């Protein structure tokens, strides 16, 4: 895959319009930047978003008593993975319903996977639609690293 292909992108654009443009105007226009798409042929393992999927059992969200359930700030667990996405989604939904200002503390996040990041992006977008505010606080280095790798820092505003 040659770099030249990419820099000529503007001149030789083969796509007249983007049917998906409605989905997300907030997303940056990658077409103007130097892009490298990582594919398996050039993808060394350390380039991949590695999320240290620890198999340690997570604290069960249900341990929280109901009184604290809907309150902000929400502290996210250390290991966030797809196994717990539904539970986290349920929880965040309730918090979003109960509050206009939601603070999410990311200081403990030691590993986060793409499924959880999807959820946080969706939460941020939902909050904008609902004219509510979601703030991500004290992001751990691991969180920043993962979000940056995927170009999500701006959307999440961390």
């Amino acid at each position, binding site marked *: 895959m040659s770099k030249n292909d990419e820099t000529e992108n503007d001149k*030789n654009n083969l796509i007249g319009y983007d049917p998906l443009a409605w989905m997300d105007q907030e997303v940056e226009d990658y077409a103007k930047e130097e892009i490298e*798409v990582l594919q398996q042929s050039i993808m060394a393992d350390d380039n991949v978003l590695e999320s240290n999927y620890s198999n340690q059992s997570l604290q069960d969200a249900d341990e929280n008593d109901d009184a604290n359930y809907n309150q902000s700030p929400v502290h996210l667990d250390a290991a966030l993975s797809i196994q717990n996405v539904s539970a986290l989604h349920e929880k965040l939904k309730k918090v979003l319903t109960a509050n206009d200002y939601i603070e999410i503390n990311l200081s403990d996040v030691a590993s986060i996977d793409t499924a959880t990041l999807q959820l946080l992006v969706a939460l941020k977008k939902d909050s904008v639609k609902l004219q509510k505010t979601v703030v991500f606080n004290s992001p751990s280095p691991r969180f920043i690293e993962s979000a940056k790798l995927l170009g999500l820092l701006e959307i999440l505003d961390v």
Partner: protein
Amino acid sequence: MRVVAIINQKGGVGKTTTSANLCHAIAELGKKVTVIDLDPQGHLAVSLGIRLQQHGGIDEVMRGEKTIQQQIIQVRDNLQLITSGSRLQEIEQLTENSPHRGDLLKNALQTGLECQDYVFIDCPPSSGLLIVNALFATDEILVPMTSDFLALQGLSHLMGTVKKFEKVLKKQYTSWLVISRYTPNRKISRQVLNILLSHFPNQILATTIRETTLLAECPSFGKTILEYSPGSQSAKDFRKLAIDFMEGRVMYVKK
């Protein structure tokens, strides 16, 4: 247990190819996988070597006539199949004597699959009642995509549908894209991929499945690529894709 719909209303994008080969690759890694053929054409069953379709399938479970356990066919180690069955089309077409409901599949899956790690649903290329049932039954979708312009148009339509469902059902799908018929030597492929990356920066599985003749050949032998040509690039692609899917490894833009 993750219940995942392999979905795209466009035909020929690689839903069935992805279903058969990804499921087999995950099963080979020791996970318990059930795959459901929700396409009345029954191509998934054929791809996995099951040709005798007198055996009832998910149709009878959705109609409340049988249980899931009664319909299971063990097709490989760790991999079980539930065929479409001959009356699935009636549910899609809303014939007189079929139940018109969106929650039939969800209900059908309630019991009998508890010990499975993954349940995949190979969806039909349509946007009728079967798709409604698939979206009711799952929280997670995997969208196979080709790398051509009309595929973007199709995806736009699909995402519109998905967003409507999210609103109505008050849920959030975890969604993944897989480039399932990639032709790297065409320039437009790269451009389509770039557009996809801009809209789905954390959702395109890291491994692209390339267009190869081997992948086109293996269904007629009832074999997955892992059996038909275990050492091939396509077999390696699907083994990698299995890990991508299990661990959420995605493609990203290097800045």
